[in-house]
């Protein structure tokens, strides 16, 4: 695909990634369901990916792209394990409320 030469894309793409990241962070704090929190984390990761891709475009190198690739892989692994933990938690406590798990209290 031919590269677009509109310069503002990159700039606005980074701003967009900022917005996505901020929304994701807010979601982590505002929601109580474990799975929803996990999804908000995925949202954050997406924001980061977008930033990488945008900067890679601006710099003209492919390193950013490669990093996106790896972030993707790690996100996949993390989602798998995270959901495994969620299933185990649900099996024990029959709830998915994040505030119900406070046994590590000092």
């Amino acid at each position, binding site marked *: *695909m031919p*590269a*677009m*030469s*509109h*310069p*503002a*894309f*990159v*700039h*606005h793409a*980074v*701003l*967009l990634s*900022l*917005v*996505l990241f*901020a*929304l994701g*962070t*807010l979601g982590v*704090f*505002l929601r*109580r369901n474990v*799975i*929803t929190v*996990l*999804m908000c984390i995925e*949202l954050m990761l*997406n924001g980061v*990916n*977008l930033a990488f*891709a*945008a900067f890679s*475009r*601006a710099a*003209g190198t*492919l*390193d950013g*792209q*490669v990093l*996106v690739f*790896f972030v*993707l*892989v*790690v*996100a*996949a692994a*993390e989602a*798998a394990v995270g*959901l*495994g*933990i969620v*299933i*185990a938690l*649900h*099996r024990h406590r029959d709830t*998915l*409320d994040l505030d119900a798990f*406070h046994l590590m209290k000092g």
Partner: protein
Amino acid sequence: MMDAVLFYLFAALAVGSALVVIGQKNPMYSAFALIVTLCSVSVIFALLGSPFIAVLQVIVYAGAIMVLFLFVLMLLNVRREEEGARPQGGRVLQVVALALVALLGAQAAVVLLQVEPGPAPSFDASTRAMAAVLFSPRYLYVFEATSILILAALVGAVVLAKKEL
């Protein structure tokens, strides 16, 4: 011209569905909204001249990870967000979180807006070019290491989900 329109359109879509993700009570709806976000972002990747990761985003993220999320949601039969008792820390926590995020965002925005966007150099991010970089000595080890990471995650997930350890 066309690109700009597409860009702003899908950007708005992404933000909108992100709001839905964090706002919806039902986790199932949040999941679907997230899929929409992911696909929008994929389009933006394409607009930025990165076809490889655009496709990868759809296949892996939207196609595999989100499906996994949906499976688990349906397995655990989650319908509604649990209201339960007062959230620990209550409003204070949410306000503080909001403040912090706003602070972070403001700072980043300030920095970004000061930067003058220069002309983007042309680059080739096709699959062929990506492959050449990924399998180059620079990233080869990392590439192989990620495969081990996936193996570990696989084993971990299986063990965690077993009924009897």
